[in-house]
C-alpha cells in the first residue's frame, strides 16, 4: 500500500490526521504556537488517558526549550533532533505517525518540518488494572475493566490497534453527566445497530447513571423478561472479541461492567477462553455448560415430577432408595425442595455480601454443616440435598451471572408446575420458557440465534454454537455483522 509523506504544511497534516481519527473522541489534539515570536505552529496528538507525569514533564521541557529559539532555529532543531526527544527516527509518513499514536505515543507536528516527532510515553495503562474476580478463565488475559471509561476504552484499543475502531462518546444523566462510550468497528458493525444503540441509551432523561446496569434496564425492550438482552462483561478481551465480531460495546464511566450487544442465548454460554483453547477442550466445556444450564433449570422439577407422579421412569432399586429416604420427613416433597432451594439461595446471597474469607466460610458452614444437620434431624431427605446442591453447581457453571440468575428464577416456576401437574406441568413450564425466548429479541436479533435462521448466514453460525469447530473453519463473522464484511479469516496467498 502506498504511504503518504508528511509535508511541511501543518494544516494538511492536521487535516489528514483528524480525518483518520474522525469520531475518535478519546484522541486529543493540542495546538500550540511555539518559538520566541510564537510564530511557528505545532500540534500534539495523543490518546487522552496516556497523559502521564512523565510525558507532561517531557512536554514542558520541550516547550520551554523551543520558546527560546527563533523560527529558523526551531526548524534545524527539530530536523536534527537536537534535544533528543525522539527515541527513533522521526516519522516520515503519515501512516507511521498514525500507528505511533495508536501504539500509545504522543506525536508532535511542527509547521515547516516534513515529518512528525514521537514523544515516548509509558504506553497504554497496564498497571492499575486489576484481575477479574468474575469470569475467570483457564487461559487468557486476567485483566478486568476499571471504573474509568477512558481507561476501559484504552484497554480495548490496546487489543484492537486500528483506526476503524470508533469511540462515540456522549453524556447521560441530567445531573451526573456520566460519560458513555459506544465502541464499535466501523465497517463491521451495522450502522443501524449503532444508531439504535445511541437512540435507546439516550431515550430517557434520568438524574444520574451510576452503573451500566441502569442504562441496560432503561434500554431493554422486553424489560419484564427474566432473560438479559445485553451481554455484560468485565473482561476487555471479551469486549474486543465482540467488537471484531461486529457487535457494539457500551462503556459507562464509573462502571467496570461493559455491555455488548446484540446478545443471544448462545453468547451467554461462551467464554473468552473458548477461543484460546483447542477445539476439543472448548467444545467439551461448551457442551458441559449447555447441560449445566438445562439441569440448573430443570433438575428439581424433574425430581418432583418423577417421584410424585411418574415412578415408572426410575429403576426399582433407586426408587426404593428415594422412598426409604423420604420416610419420617415431615414436609411434602414439593415443600422440601422449595425450602432447600431457598436456603441455598440465602447461603449464596450471604456469601456474596460478606467480606473476603468470611464469605467463603459461610458457604462451607452452611452447605456442609447445616445441610448435614437437617438430614440427620430428618427435616429433609438426603436425595433432595443432592438434587439441590447439584442444581446450584450447574448454575455456577453458567459463565454470565445475569443469565444464570434467569435460570435460578425460572427453576422455581418449574418446581411449582411439576409439583402441581407432574411431567405435564414440567413440559408446560419448559415450553413456556422456550416460547418466551423465541419471542425475545436483542436489537432485532432473535434471542435463539444461531439455532433460528442459520441459513441466513450460510449455516456458518452453527459452527460456534453447541460445539466450537476448529478456528480455521470459523471463517465467517456472525449474522449481525455488516453483510459486506462477513469474512474474518482467510489463508494468505503465497
Amino acid at each position, binding site marked *: 500500500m502506498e504511504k503518504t509523506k508528511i509535508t511541511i504544511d501543518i494544516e494538511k497534516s492536521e487535516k489528514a490526521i483528524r480525518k483518520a481519527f474522525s469520531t475518535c473522541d478519546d484522541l486529543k489534539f493540542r495546538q500550540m504556537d511555539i518559538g520566541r515570536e510564537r510564530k511557528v505552529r505545532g500540534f500534539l496528538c495523543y490518546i487522552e488517558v496516556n497523559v502521564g507525569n512523565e510525558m507532561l514533564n517531557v512536554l514542558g521541557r520541550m516547550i520551554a526549550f523551543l520558546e527560546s529559539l527563533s523560527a529558523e532555529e526551531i526548524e534545524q532543531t527539530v530536523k536534527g533532533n537536537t534535544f533528543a526527544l525522539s527515541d527513533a527516527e522521526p516519522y516520515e509518513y503519515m501512516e507511521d505517525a498514525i500507528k505511533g499514536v495508536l501504539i500509545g505515543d504522543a506525536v508532535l507536528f511542527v509547521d515547516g518540518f516534513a515529518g512528525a516527532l514521537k514523544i515516548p510515553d509509558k504506553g497504554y495503562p497496564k498497571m492499575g488494572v486489576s484481575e477479574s474476580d468474575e469470569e475467570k478463565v483457564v487461559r487468557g488475559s486476567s485483566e478486568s475493566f476499571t471504573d474509568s471509561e477512558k481507561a476501559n476504552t484504552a484497554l480495548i484499543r490496546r487489543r484492537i490497534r486500528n483506526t476503524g475502531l470508533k469511540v462515540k462518546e456522549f453524556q447521560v444523566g441530567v445531573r451526573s453527566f456520566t460519560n458513555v462510550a459506544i465502541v464499535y468497528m466501523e465497517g463491521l458493525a451495522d450502522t443501524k445497530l449503532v444508531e439504535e444503540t445511541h437512540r435507546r441509551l439516550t431515550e430517557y432523561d434520568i438524574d444520574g447513571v451510576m452503573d451500566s446496569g441502569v442504562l441496560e434496564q432503561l434500554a431493554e425492550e422486553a424489560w419484564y423478561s427474566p432473560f438479559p438482552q445485553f451481554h455484560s462483561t468485565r473482561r476487555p478481551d471479551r469486549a474486543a472479541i465482540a467488537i471484531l465480531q461486529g457487535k457494539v460495546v457500551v462503556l459507562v464511566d464509573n462502571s467496570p461492567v461493559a455491555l455488548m450487544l446484540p446478545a443471544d442465548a448462545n453468547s451467554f454460554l461462551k467464554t473468552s477462553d473458548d477461543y484460546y483453547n483447542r477445539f476439543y477442550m472448548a467444545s467439551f466445556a461448551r457442551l458441559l455448560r449447555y447441560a449445566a444450564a438445562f439441569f440448573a433449570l430443570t433438575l428439581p422439577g424433574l425430581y418432583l415430577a418423577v417421584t410424585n407422579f411418574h415412578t415408572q421412569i426410575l429403576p426399582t432399586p433407586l426408587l426404593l432408595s428415594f422412598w426409604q429416604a423420604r420416610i419420617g420427613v415431615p414436609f411434602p416433597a414439593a415443600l422440601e425442595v422449595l425450602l432447600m432451594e431457598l436456603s441455598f439461595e440465602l447461603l449464596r446471597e450471604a456469601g456474596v455480601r460478606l467480606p473476603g474469607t468470611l464469605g467463603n466460610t459461610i458457604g462451607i458452614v452452611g452447605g456442609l454443616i447445616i445441610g448435614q444437620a437437617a438430614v440427620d434431624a430428618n427435616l429433609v431427605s438426603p436425595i433432595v440435598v443432592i438434587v439441590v446442591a447439584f442444581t446450584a453447581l450447574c448454575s455456577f457453571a453458567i459463565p454470565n451471572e445475569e443469565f444464570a440468575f434467569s435460570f435460578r428464577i425460572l427453576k422455581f416456576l418449574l418446581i411449582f408446575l411439576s409439583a402441581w*401437574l*407432574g411431567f405435564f406441568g414440567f413440559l408446560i413450564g419448559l415450553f413456556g420458557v422456550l416460547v418466551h425466548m423465541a*419471542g425475545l429479541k436483542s436489537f432485532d436479533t432473535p434471542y435463539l440465534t444461531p439455532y433460528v435462521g442459520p441459513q441466513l448466514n450460510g449455516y456458518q453460525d452453527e459452527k460456534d454454537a453447541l460445539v466450537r469447530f476448529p478456528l480455521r473453519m470459523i471463517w465467517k463473522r456472525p*449474522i449481525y455483522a455488516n453483510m459486506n464484511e462477513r469474512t474474518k479469516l482467510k489463508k494468505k496467498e503465497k
Partner: protein
Amino acid sequence: MYVNNGEISSRQTFRLYVFDLMGIATLLLPPYLAQLCGIDGIWAILIGTGAGVLYLIYLGWVMKRMQMDACTYLRENTGVIFRFTTVGLVWLHSIITAGFCAYVFSNLMQYTLVRESKFWIILFVIVLVAAYAVSGGIESRARVYEVLFLPVLIPYIAMMLATIKDFEFVYVEDVFRVSGRQLLEGSYLVFLFLAPLFYSLFLIGEKEKNYGRNVVKTILCSIGLSALILFLSYVLLVGNFGENALAKMRFPVVTIMSTIQFKGNFLKRMDALMLGVWFFTLYALLNLHLHYGVLLLKDAALKENKNQKAKQEGRQTKWWQLVVPSVLVFGIAYVLQQYEDGIRLFLNYYAYVAVPIMVVLPLVFVIVGRKNKSA
C-alpha cells in the same frame, strides 16, 4: 437481516408442517386405520398421502392465481359480504379444530400423565399457554419449532426403531385382504389428517412470478417426511400389537413407548418422557389453528388504512382478539369431553363438512376474485 414482517422461512415452514401433520396423525390414526383396513392401512396411507399431494398442488395453483396470501386477496378482490362469509367460515372451522386439538391434547395428558387431575384444569393450562404462544406471532412460534425439530424427531424415530426387536411378522402377513371401499375410506381418513394444508393459502409468500411455488415445494417435503414417519409407525404398531389389538387401543403409539426397554439403560420406562413428542406436536397443531382463529379475527377488524402507523398498530393483537378465540376453544374442548367418543364426533364433522368445504373454497376464492376483477 431479520425483519418483523409476519413471514417465516422455508426451513421454519417445513418443520412446522412436519409437526402439524405427523403429530396428531401418529397419535390418533393407527387405531381407526386398523379398524378399517388392518395391515392394508399401509396402502391407505400411501393413497391418502397421494391425495394430499394432489390437494397441495391444487392449492399451489390457487396461490399462483391469487399472487398473495388469502387474507389480502379477499380484502382486495372480493366484496365485503363474500369476504366476511368465507373468512367467518374459515374462522369457525379454525376454532372448532383448535377446540378438538385442545380436547385430544388434554385427554392424552390426563390419561397418560396426570390421571388424578381434573380435565378442565389441564385444558385451561393448555389453552393459556397456547394463547401466550400465539400472542408472540407466527415468527415466534416458528422459531420454537425450528429449535425443537431435531430434539423431538430423533428420539421418536430412535424409539420406534427400537420396537423392531419385538416385531412379529405373523401380524403383517395378511395383506390385500381389505375391500376397495374400506381402502378408500381408510385413504380418506388419512387425507383428513392432511387437511391443515389448507392454511398454506394464508402464508405470506415471497413476491415472485410463481407466487407460492417455494411454499408448495417446502410443504411437499413436509408431507413426504410426515407420511414416511406415519407409514413406519403404522407398520411397527401393527407388527408389535397386531391389527385387532391395535384397533382397540386408545393411544397405541404411547403404549408402545412403554414397552421399550434398553438393556443397561438407567431409566426403566420411557413412555412418560416420550410424551414430550406429542406434547410439542399437538401444541404445534393447536397453535396453528388458534393462530388462524386470531389472525382472521384481526383481519376482519382491520380498517383499510394506508397510514404506516395504523398498519403497524393493526398488526398488533388486541387483548379481545386473543381472549375470545381462546375462550371458545376451551368451551368446545370441554363440550367434546362430555361425549363418550368426542374424537369420532369431530371426525364425522371433519369428514362430511369441513374437508369438502376446504377443498371447494380455494376455487371459489379464485372464481369470485376473477369475476370481481373483470367487473
